[in-house]
């Protein structure tokens, strides 16, 4: 059973009587422990897909199952709970709370899952250790470099031990070298058994992931654009992972 199952999912916006299909009849499965990227030009609907996958938004039509739970039926409160326990987010602009220090930022999700103060501290320290930031606990986000801030954000995403980690352009605001460190971090997480989904339009990043899902005009493209997926840049030998060219057909 796949971790995420999307069946005929559509997201329709109405703008002044005009119907805009940001997602159009998307059917998609993502399994446990997969490391995949969602690619596509801007305006293609990849952000919408990520919002729906990440339970930030609910679809207009279709069904989604996350870890066996029907998402489209869940109330906003249940969605918040699912985001809290099963999903970790990493954003392009880090989205740390500037008034809180590093540890407090990492503790934030646990506050909403009702974990006691002492355990919060222990788990936050552990998560920060995983991203190798144990030496900057008391700093404010503004006192950290971009790479460090993104690592704090990753620690925050990890701290509730979620099954899925979403990253929306995680390296978009970082230089190449720092970006590579962050990507290596994601790869490690994926190897540890977590499902990691990267949303990007950067071919170099897409090239790193074994599976690439391309969105074009709200639909999943049958054939991944090689240029967009960064496949042309890879030496043949390095393209170890088979490019996934079609959505996995759900096993009924």
């Amino acid at each position, binding site marked *: 059973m796949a971790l995420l199952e999307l069946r005929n999912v559509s997201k329709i916006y109405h703008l002044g009587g005009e119907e805009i299909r940001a997602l159009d009849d998307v059917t998609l499965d993502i399994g446990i422990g997969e490391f995949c990227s969602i690619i596509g030009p801007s305006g293609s609907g990849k952000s919408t897909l990520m919002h729906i996958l990440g339970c930030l938004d609910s679809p207009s039509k279709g069904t989604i199952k996350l870890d066996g739970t029907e998402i489209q039926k869940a109330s*906003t409160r249940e969605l*918040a709970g699912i985001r809290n326990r099963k999903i970790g*987010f990493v954003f392009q602009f880090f989205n740390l709370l500037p*008034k809180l220090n590093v540890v407090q930022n990492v503790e*934030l999700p646990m506050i*909403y899952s009702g974990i006691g103060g002492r355990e919060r501290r222990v788990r936050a320290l552990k998560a920060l250790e995983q991203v190798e930031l144990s030496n900057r606990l008391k700093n404010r986000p503004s006192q950290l470099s971009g790479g460090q801030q993104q690592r704090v954000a990753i620690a925050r995403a990890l701290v509730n031990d979620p099954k899925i980690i979403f990253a929306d352009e995680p390296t978009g605001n970082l230089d190449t070298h720092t970006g590579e460190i962050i990507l290596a971090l994601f790869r490690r997480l994926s190897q540890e058994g977590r499902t990691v989904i990267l949303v990007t339009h950067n071919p170099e990043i897409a090239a790193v992931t074994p599976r690439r899902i391309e969105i074009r005009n709200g639909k999943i493209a049958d054939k991944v654009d090689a240029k967009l997926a960064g496949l042309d840049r890879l030496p043949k030998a390095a393209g170890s992972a088979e490019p996934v060219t079609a959505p996995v057909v759900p096993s009924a």
Partner: protein
Amino acid sequence: MSLFNAIVVGLKEIWAHKFRSLLTMLGIILGVSSLIAMSALVEGMERGSREALIAVGGVEKVRIEAQPVPVEQRNLRDFATGVTLSDVYALQRSAPEVLTVSPEMRLEPQPTLSANGKVYRTWNIAGVWPVQAQIMEHTIEHGRMFTAYDDELARSVCVIGTGVRDGLFGSPEETGQDINPVGQTMNIGGSPFTIIGMFQHYESEQDRKIREVRLAEEAQKRALGLTNRVSGPKRSRGWNGNRGGSFAFRMKNNTVYLPLNSAWIKLRSGQTNLPPEPRLSEMEIKIRDISKLDLALTEIRNIMMVRHRGIEDFTLRTQEDWAEQINTFIHNARLSGGLIAGISLLVGGIGIMNIMLASISERIREIGIRKAVGAGGLDIFTQIVVESTVIAFVGGLTGLVTSYGLIHLIVSFTPTDNAPIITIGSMAFAFGASLIIGVLAGLIPALKAARMNVIQSLRYD
């Protein structure tokens, strides 16, 4: 999110914007302290009025006053007997609800008092029975009250209040000593009477405190040798309005009581063209039970009407009216003051709401982040409500403290006879009201924050 966490977050938020929070709190602080100050001032007034009421006999006292025959009974004028001692005896025998009765014969016109080479005029000289002292709540300080025997023999004795002593023999403030006039002779309208007793000095709690402080200061000055003893005799500087405190106490202190028979025989019969019957001016009656006041009044009235053959040449006067007036006045003062203070508290609440709205719109992104990592609408709602409540809580506590200063400030502007009294009840009420207002002020901003769309707030700059 637990409530404790929410409170901690709220406190941090307030601490992060110290000046802004302080300004916001100021509204609540002023509201709470003005509410308490108002209540304390009214409470003081109420205490003062009640003291005065008790000083003149309390609510159990009923007074029968002689009055001219009403217009519609003018043709029966010649049959009108007036209030007499026979009425007193009749009430004593026939009215079970009446505890004690004392006849009172005020001397009209009020004679001049003279003693010690001084002259004093007062307005409360009356011939009474000894029991009058109890009805009017008098306490003897020096000497004794005259007895029924003194009355029987119409002895030339009298008992005076401190006001009369001050006028004739000098007050403690002027002479520096508490002069005991017992044994002195005082002329009442030219007839010599021996002062056999003096009542204690009556004053409100407030006046007593002020006097004690002044006495202590003077004693200290004397000890340091600072008094100027060669400044000559004290001059009158015109009407000394504040002497003796409020009217009720001043009246009580200016009492001169003589035995009823002495007043009648020695003073009143000396005046011409009066009928032989000793007409009384009033009767003071103490009733048995205040809860049966209506019954007692009916009894008294019925007996009096029978005795006076239906001619209404008397009137019943209760202190209930006075007590009711006090209640109405206090009620009104409390209502109007409370309304104004309540409005200022409300304005404080609106200030909080305003700031909370501003605060959430500058924290849209933060709210989005919190929601993205799993905060539900309820968590955000709680956080905002707690923040506004914490502002109101801290403001309310500060208000409790500053109310003290505010009261002192008000009193220094407008000195009153009645010291303000801060009650626990008013403090609890004001504090509770500020908390409720804090919660209410947080509701709308909290609802707004809780309903924010996650994606839009995450994208907000």
